[in-house]
């Protein structure tokens, strides 16, 4: 049980947004930063330090990987989700859906 609880530990917002941003296509650092602003309706703007701190941890966990794009220079590495990263994102979405359903149920019960 404890093991299951650890596996579905909530992701931090920067990590969730990075995984979301990479879900449809690979992106490099600046494109990630811009896409995260769009995904969060302008609410979240990650600083470069925060972005690369999260990217480093995600690389260490092998949830994302770096790869060469045709126009890639050392200053413009691209990142993409790994299978493990995609699985983590799905798990997080399931966790959020479950919470949303539970919260909506409680609200309905209160209003009925």
């Amino acid at each position, binding site marked *: 049980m404890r093991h299951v609880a650890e596996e579905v530990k909530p992701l931090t917002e920067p990590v969730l947004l990075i995984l979301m941003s990479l879900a449809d296509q690979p992106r490099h*650092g600046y494109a990630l930063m811009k896409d995260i602003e769009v995904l969060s309706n302008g609410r979240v703007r990650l600083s470069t*330090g925060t972005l*690369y701190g999260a990217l480093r941890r995600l690389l260490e966990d092998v949830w994302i990987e770096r790869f*060469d794009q045709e126009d890639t220079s050392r200053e413009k590495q691209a990142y993409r989700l790994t299978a493990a990263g995609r699985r983590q994102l799905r798990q997080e979405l399931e966790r959020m859906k479950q919470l949303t359903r539970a919260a909506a149920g409680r609200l309905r019960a209160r209003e009925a």
Partner: protein
Amino acid sequence: MKRIYGAFLRLYPREYRELFGPEVLSVFEQAAREQRARGWGAWALFMVSELSGAVVSAAGHWMDRFSARRDAAGIEVAGARRRGLFSVLDEAQNRVDLNLRRMTHAIADRDFVAARAYSIEDLKAREDLRKLRDRFGFDE
């Protein structure tokens, strides 16, 4: 601007700078250019956010680095007792395996800067594992 931010990058561990340094500077430069076009106010806010973010992030990297080293070395016998000796040894072995995988990926991706950084980490991880085995009298 780039020089100021570059100076802040020196706060980060060396392997981080080797792996991400040029990329981070390039992203910072693009973002700074965009904010500057929005006016001085936006630019000033951006710089405050970036420089404070760099300091906080550098501290996070150092903390991660120290805690990883401490965990791997298993210096704390109390920690070993709490988590179980085999768990500590497994963690150290996993770290060695993980570094090796990353190094292999980096070489396959022709990212030799990253490969070198992982190779340095690999040496440290193997040394930590060796110390642990010596400490608890385990053979290879």
